């Protein structure tokens, strides 16, 4: 096995008095596809939000590509990371949100172009070319100058994916990306994720309720329960052969 691209070491997270994560140890390999399932409130989303630096762990460390995400060295000591350090590390990570979070004051194309131009300092022409390419890939090449408000939920989510992909991250995080969609729009979004997964080079972490989908594309499934990883393994082992009772009853609710 190669060096993991992400490593969680005994990560804890509390919100006030509520302990959400009670010691997460997790390695993610480059190009690995990991699906995270579990009941709501189990801390699934918090796991990836900490990786995206949207939430700070209460204790423990997260290593991204050999670099400590939340801590940095200063005069030989390990001190909490500052904004500059966070920016250096999180450049490898992209995220797609449940509620899309598109920028409503920008066109679809501008949504995709703005970060390559301002963050990666690409010149405008190549950023535009990349963005158009990516939007065509998600099937929205004809909507470049539309504003987000004019799109359906499924289209918005595909734009959000193009916006993240155009940054060429090594790790992509998907936070329940189909939960806010009307049922008939879920398919088109999953289709795009499947295409991305098949290209293979990115590590992907998907927090999801789509069990069938998770089985299809994931290399590994984590069942999160009560703040710990209660079960993990290849999809078949977790979804079909596990003896974990909590997992059984969780899956049972989805099957019916």
């Amino acid at each position, binding site marked *: 096995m190669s060096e993991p691209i992400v490593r969680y070491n005994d990560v804890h997270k509390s919100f006030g008095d509520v302990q959400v994560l009670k010691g997460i140890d997790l390695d993610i390999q480059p190009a690995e596809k990991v699906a995270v399932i579990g009941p709501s409130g189990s801390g699934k989303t918090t796991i990836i939000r900490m990786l995206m630096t949207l939430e700070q762990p209460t204790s423990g460390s997260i290593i991204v590509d050999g670099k400590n995400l939340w801590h940095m060295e200063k005069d030989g000591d390990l001190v909490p990371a500052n904004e500059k350090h966070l920016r250096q590390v999180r450049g490898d990570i992209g995220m797609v949100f449940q*509620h*899309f*979070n*598109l*920028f*409503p004051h920008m066109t679809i194309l501008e949504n995709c172009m703005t970060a390559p131009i301002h963050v990666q300092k690409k010149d405008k022409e190549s950023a535009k070319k990349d963005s158009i390419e990516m939007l065509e890939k998600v099937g929205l090449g004809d909507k470049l100058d539309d504003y*987000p*408000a004019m799109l359906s*939920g499924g289209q*918005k989510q595909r734009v959000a994916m193009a916006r993240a992909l155009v940054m060429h991250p090594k790790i992509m995080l998907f936070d329940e990306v189909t939960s*806010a969609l009307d049922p008939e729009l879920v398919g088109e979004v999953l289709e795009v994720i499947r295409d991305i997964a098949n290209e293979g080079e990115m590590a992907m972490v998907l927090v999801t309720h789509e069990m069938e989908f998770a089985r299809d594309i994931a290399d590994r499934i984590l069942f999160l329960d009560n703040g710990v990883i209660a079960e993990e393994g290849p999809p078949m082992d977790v979804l079909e052969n596990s003896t974990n009772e909590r997992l059984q009853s969780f899956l049972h609710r989805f099957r019916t």
Partner: protein
Amino acid sequence: MSNWSWSTFSDAFPVVLEGLGITLGLTIACYLFALIFGFIWTLIRRMPIKVIRLPLLWVMEFIRSTPPLVQLFFIFYAWPMVPVVGMALDPFVSAVIGLGIHYSTYIGEVYRSGIDAVDNGQWEAARALNYGTSKKWTKIILPQALPPTIPMLGNYLIIMFKEVPLASTIGVLGILAMANDYGAQHWRYLEPLTIVAILFLVLSYPSAILINKLERKMNKRFDKKEPTGSKAV
């Protein structure tokens, strides 16, 4: 800060304070006038006949967008000179009418927002119950439309309190006029004007906090959602 004199301060304080009764009284009087007159604008807004409604709404817009100070001067200096209807009014009454009418145009909009916020179904229900016009308004619409506007109306009480010193310019002897008089007599404006500022602050700041609390309570009671979560875009 060497020019500050505490002895002038304590000398001027009771003089300025003498005007407080007038300032507060004028505030209440203007406010009541505006509350009542505001209804007239609301009625005009609902008038079905366009040729009457539109010109009157322009009058409202005119009053709203011109300075209350000039309107005060108009009532006090010009009204007595207007043929037939004109008559001399004392400063206090002029201020009540001038500021009252000016702010009634704002209060009217507050009423309107309250009425607009009443759910469509309530109007239909009134029709379904075959209520007459007056019964519809007094039993169904107004009891729902007015309470949510109370915090906004409260805000206007504070706003009017702060506008009332304009009346010092036509000789209403509130705290600002008292301070100006003291200043002119003793050629010391610093302390009396500072006293006026302090009085306004001391009276309006706690009231503003109170209104804020009331607003939050009202929002809860009338089930207006506190902004939570993010709208999906």
